[in-house]
């Protein structure tokens, strides 16, 4: 029998009243890629933070190579051969690659020979795993993909035998994901053990040999990857069966109701982010806008929803010009014309997170009947409305009086959707509707968007999740460097084609 390199026994961890990890048992074998999958908030990251020494378990033991060890700080873990690549990179942006890597492991107090030795060791590691990193470059000049490689190199330099990666692909383009997977496979070949935390089933099937599933703080199962499939895993994660591809009927799109001509938009730093964009959205259609974060989608969405001024071009809603160089409709008047907007950043723009749920549920419509009369809010009506829509949109917990920040990401998103969809908008602009939302809620939100489409709404879906764009859209456009670089009918396009467009290659 193979002896496990890492073994967790009865790990428990609570944060206040939240029992984040309940009696977790886990065995990870040497030289494997082991996946840990679960919805957001299932406790995966907490568990791995315990293994990395960032948090201390309330009870339970951790064995490495059969020996019990106490992990009181990340230093203990690093010295035991554990490395972790966090979801948010732990890099100092204005430091060089070299400085970031040696931080905490400088060797000597005064810099000199130790730097030369570190450079030599790092060059060797780079060559061995084909990482292709320039040690002198500053982190802020590097792309996200390269920053991640720096994190991997950092762990290797510190002697990691077990490498934990927390949601490593969330910020990468499909091509970068391929590169990452190549690196991970070569690490495995060299005998390293890799723990991959993810909520993406494709990655598990692609890469791992074993997979453990977590749900609501508990370990619900361990499987050999070859003897399971996506549907089984999804069911274990959510606790019930889910649709992986939304069932949607094909519809005939109607007239173009929202048109954009030669739109140019600048950002706050006066940089042109949207360059001569043209697009039409038709009744009864979902137009998907794919692209890697930061290619102008945010500014485009803000301009279309009346939050950001445009430089030139024209935006038309029902053949009426709502925005051009001189004229500018604000979000309130756009709302009255039947345009609704679900912003990308729900906590900054979509919600006042310190407000109670019922306040957020009517915000923006609060001045209308039946929520207020003569500028006085009518609390009774608001509360009964809130209870009704929370039921309808399955917002959990159903407490209109709870402060919004206490809801999970998915439920916060449902609060925004129920507010914006309640008025039956004719045109709906949606940004990142399921970012940081768990699978159960994703399914629900997707179904709602399809329902809106079937009722004849024109929907623009902006998302960095390629899978989401593919499963919802009728038509897909790809944005790169501020321009629309491609338009595809959904049913004749592959991930690869879109990936190349997103990377600006095709």
């Amino acid at each position, binding site marked *: 029998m193979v002896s496990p390199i890492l073994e967790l026994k009865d790990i428990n961890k609570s944060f206040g009243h939240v029992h984040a990890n309940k009696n977790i048992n886990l065995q990870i074998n040497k030289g494997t890629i082991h996946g840990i999958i679960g919805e957001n908030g299932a406790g995966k990251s907490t568990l791995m933070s315990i293994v990395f020494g960032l948090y201390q378990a309330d009870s339970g033991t951790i064995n490495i190579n059969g020996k019990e060890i106490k992990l009181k700080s*990340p230093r203990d873990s690093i010295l035991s051969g554990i490395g972790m690549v966090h979801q*948010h990179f*732990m890099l100092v942006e*204005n*430091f060089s690659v070299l400085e970031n890597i040696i*931080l*905490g492991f*400088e060797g000597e*107090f005064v*810099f000199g020979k130790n730097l030369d030795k570190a450079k030599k060791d790092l060059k060797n590691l780079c060559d061995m795993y084909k990482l292709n990193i320039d040690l002198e470059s500053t982190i802020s000049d590097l792309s996200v993909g390269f920053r991640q490689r720096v994190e991997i190199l950092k762990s290797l330099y510190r002697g990691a035998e077990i490498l934990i990666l927390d949601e490593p692909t969330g910020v990468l383009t499909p091509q970068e994901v391929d590169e990452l997977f190549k690196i991970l496979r070569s690490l495995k070949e060299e005998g390293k053990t890799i723990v991959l935390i993810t909520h993406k089933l494709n990655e598990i099937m692609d890469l791992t040999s074993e997979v453990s599933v977590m749900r609501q703080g508990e370990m619900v199962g361990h499987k050999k990857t070859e003897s399971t499939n996506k549907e089984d895993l999804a069911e274990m994660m959510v606790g019930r069966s889910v649709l992986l591809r939304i069932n949607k009927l094909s519809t005939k799109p109607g007239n173009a109701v929202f048109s954009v001509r030669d739109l140019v938009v600048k950002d706050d730093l006066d940089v042109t982010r949207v360059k001569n964009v043209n697009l039409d959205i038709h009744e009864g259609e979902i137009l998907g806008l794919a692209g890697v974060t930061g290619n102008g989608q945010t500014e485009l969405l803000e301009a279309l929803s009346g939050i950001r001024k445009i430089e030139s071009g024209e935006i038309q809603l029902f053949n009426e010009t709502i925005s051009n160089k001189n004229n500018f409709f604000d979000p309130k008047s756009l709302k009255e014309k039947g345009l609704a907007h679900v912003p990308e950043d729900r906590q900054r723009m979509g919600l006042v997170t310190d407000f109670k749920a019922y306040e957020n549920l009517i915000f923006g419509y609060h001045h209308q009947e039946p929520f207020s009369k003569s500028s006085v809010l009518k609390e009774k009506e608001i509360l009964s409305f809130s209870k009704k829509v929370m039921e309808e949109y399955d917002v959990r917990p159903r407490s209109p009086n709870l402060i919004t920040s206490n809801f999970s990401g998915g439920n916060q998103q449902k609060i925004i959707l129920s507010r914006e969809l309640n008025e039956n908008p004719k045109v709906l602009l949606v940004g990142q509707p399921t970012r940081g939302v768990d699978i159960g809620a994703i399914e629900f939100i997707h179904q709602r968007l399809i329902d809106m489409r079937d009722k004849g709404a024109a929907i623009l879906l902006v998302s960095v999740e390629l899978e989401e764009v593919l499963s919802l859209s009728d038509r897909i456009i790809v944005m790169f460097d501020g321009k629309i670089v491609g338009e595809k009918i959904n049913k004749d396009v592959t991930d690869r084609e879109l990936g190349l467009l997103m990377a600006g290659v095709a």
Partner: protein
Amino acid sequence: MDSLADIASLLNSTFRISTPLVFAAMAGLFAERSGVIDFGLEGKMLAAAFVAAVGSYFFGSPWMGLLLAILACVSLSMLHGFASVTHKGDQVVSCVAINILMIGLTTALAAAWFGQAGLTPTLTSDQRFLEITLPFADALQDIPIIGLIYSDIISGHYIFVYIAYLSVPIVFWIVFKTSFGLRLRAVGENPSAVDTAGINVFSMRYKALMVNGVLIAFAGAHLSTAVNANFFREMSAGRGYLALAALIFGKWHPKTALIACLLFGFTDALQIRLQGVELPMIGTIPVQLIQAIPYILTVVLLAGFVGKAIAPNAIGQPYIKER
């Protein structure tokens, strides 16, 4: 008076006047590079001046006064750390508390111990630091240029003046050429990166504050046991704030902060020199206007003359692990 000697005396005063600013700016650099705002330089400088004067008076040795001043300032820095690092309180509030407390405490203690509010007894010459004449200063006096530079500008200062200018390259070396410096800069930019590298964020910040306390003590001792022979009420006179301005103007870098301190010192020296002097064509400038020059300069410089000063990324934020 010939103009060369004028310039020499102006530069001589510049170095003397800039000394407490340099100490304070270097002290602030350690705190702020570690991510802790130090608005309390003013209060600590005042405390150091008071403790140094009182210590010298009671123990009869200025070195004893300096030692006690260091202890006092390190304690105050630790208090600031306890409030804002350990208990994650608001850093500016903690500093303001220290500043206000020190104004009141020094005045009250002086009244209780010496019967005069905010005034300590005059120190005798063996109770204070005296000006140091460097070797050969007298011999070189008459050589043109070299004599002027060496004997009239460089020689004849208090020991703190030399320590201050020597401290700048040392600070530079520590901050940029040692592992302590790397960790210090990292903890002010991204404490999470430091934590995950297995270094204790809190202990790093406390270490930085300890160095901060030692350096600021020198500034206070310079004021009350070197250039003056006693402590008087609010004798720091805004130098702590001015040093902080120099630090920001110098973009948290020892070399440029030094230049900023010298610039402030120079305008102050000029200001003193110009008082009552009749300038050709202009006439006598009112004293009030002349005295305002250093402050006007501060405002002009900080109001964007130097471009955007980019502070350490994590400055002012207490470190809290996620959740």
